[in-house]
């Protein structure tokens, strides 16, 4: 089954009642409520190919979760359309449910009073997974997530890391081709985060699952995502690779080169400016909107000049995303 996600002009508007301030205002609101429209998602279009991991990024309140809820079929769009594994999620909820798995942050779908394994068994019955298949998949997940060390423990007694690992397994027990993860590693320690990332990488690379991930953890994005969609105020700001984002918002790199001959004439190169020079030591930086990536700039400098030493300083993804968010706010 193809695990593609197609999103075309997707929009969702919520209508809420605004409470006027003060006692009189509150009374007025009861009699004459003022309704306002909030455009949570506006005209978003993107695709996710089968077996691809896409990071859906944006600041808080950007519309990421609303988008995921439309793609999971919980929410019906105001306009536009989407297909997940060939199914229109909000029109065929039950069919869509068999094609998708989902984890929403720290919200667990496991039963609080039951041992983890009992929760898995109930989900097995709900999704009608044959027992042998269920056992084999559980064994596979145990190898990756070390579930057996706590799966006989009641969910209420699990640590956050154990619970999220259990939730990840629960979301994939029915072998869905598409997985939605809404901030799955929020609040977890670095060791468990890495374990979860390994698990996700395995699911994408070995099991060809399509994963749509939202996170504020840029290390996670860097380690996992092939492509990024950035949204803000419900609008799509950028759809591209991490390099694209760096090129557009992360032009804060510097290439520090030591020339073999201190008297060499140094001239600006296409998209590369000379920021400083002190004898043989030259600092290059990006010049203009068409500046190359740091790696391209490094290659150009080395090809153009004879250098005895070189070092690069590059803004990390946190800085890049901060710049992207600031840029998105300004648009």
């Amino acid at each position: 089954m193809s695990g593609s996600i197609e999103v075309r002009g997707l929009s969702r508007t919520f209508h809420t009642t605004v409470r006027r301030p003060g006692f009189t205002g509150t009374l007025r609101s009861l009699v004459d409520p003022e309704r306002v429209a909030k455009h949570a998602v506006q005209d978003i279009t993107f695709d996710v190919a089968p077996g691809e991991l896409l990071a859906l990024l944006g600041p808080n309140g950007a519309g990421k979760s609303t988008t995921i809820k439309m793609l999971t079929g919980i929410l019906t769009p105001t306009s536009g359309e989407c297909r997940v594994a060939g199914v229109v999620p909000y029109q065929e909820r039950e069919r869509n449910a068999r094609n998708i798995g989902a984890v929403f942050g720290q919200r667990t779908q496991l039963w609080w009073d039951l041992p983890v394994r009992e929760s898995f068994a109930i989900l097995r019955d709900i999704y009608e997974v044959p027992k042998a298949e269920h056992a084999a998949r559980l064994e596979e997940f145990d190898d990756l997530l070390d579930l057996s060390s706590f799966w006989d423990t009641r969910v209420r007694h699990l640590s956050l890391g154990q619970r999220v690992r259990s939730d990840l397994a629960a979301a994939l027990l029915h072998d869905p081709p598409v997985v939605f993860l809404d901030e799955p590693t929020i609040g977890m320690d670095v060791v468990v985060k890495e374990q979860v990332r390994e698990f996700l990488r395995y699911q994408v690379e070995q099991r060809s699952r399509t994963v749509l991930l939202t996170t504020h953890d840029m290390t996670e994005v860097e380690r996992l995502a092939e492509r990024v969609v950035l949204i803000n105020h419900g609008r799509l700001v950028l759809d591209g690779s991490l390099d694209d984002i760096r090129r557009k918002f992360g032009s804060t790199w510097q290439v520090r080169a030591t020339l073999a001959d201190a008297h060499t004439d140094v001239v600006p190169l296409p998209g590369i400016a000379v920021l400083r020079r002190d004898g043989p030591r030259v600092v290059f930086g990006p010049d203009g909107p068409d500046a190359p990536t740091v790696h391209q700039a490094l290659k150009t400098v080395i090809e153009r000049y004879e250098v005895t030493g070189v070092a690069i300083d590059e803004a990390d993804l946190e800085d890049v995303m901060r710049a992207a968010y600031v840029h998105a706010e300004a648009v």
Partner: protein
Amino acid sequence: MAVLHAWRAARVTPLGELHTPPRMTAVLVRLAVQVVLVASLWHGLYSHTSTTAGLDEGQAVTYAVLAVLASRLRELDQYAGRDTVLQHMHFGTIVYWYLRPLPPQRYYALRALGEQLYGLAWALGGFAVCLAAGVVEPPRSAAVAGVFAVSLLLGQWVLYYVMLVLDQMCFFTIRNNSAMLILIFVQNLLSGVYAPLWYFPDWFITLSGFLPFQATLSVPLSIYVGRIQLADAGVQLAVQAAWVVVLALFTRWVWRQAARRVISQGG
């Protein structure tokens, strides 16, 4: 097709109870204390009279003790298990009910069925002990027992829908605590848990006739103790069945409305 295996979701609450022995011990102690106190109270009330409100001492004690046992049918500690609709709305976990191939209304029904069967096991155990100890009278005939069983089944069905309406309120009001407190009181009062409805004034009995609560417990227990004769039971069963139909249609409509609300409040 989903229902072929999904019916096993009915084991959710009983399993949770079985994994929490202290809760079961508490239930056992509470039931024992309640039965002893209620039986003593009604014996005491009848110490200077033989028949009141059409019930003799044996009927009244039997009615009151059975009411205690039957109230156990749907009185599980879901709150401790974080499995009330209110909590699912509060924690946002209600979204998972909408992400499974088992529709939320069917999952809710299966879960309730499991609860009621588990509660029935407790009630039957308590009934057997009370019967053996002579605290309650046996049914007067096999026919009475049969009609009582049918009426109890219909009564539990009505109770299921009453509880469902309350839970559905969470989709619209986020919290149902106050409504729940009011309902528990009204349900216990109008269904006859606190005292058989026959002891109340006529206007009260007439008023409660327009509400579904007496159909949950008062009718089956009145049939059991003989306060409603078998000849009149048909009408009562029909009223109970009518409540089942009305509430089924109403709650079905509310489920549809609730699905539209799940995001704005549960997401």
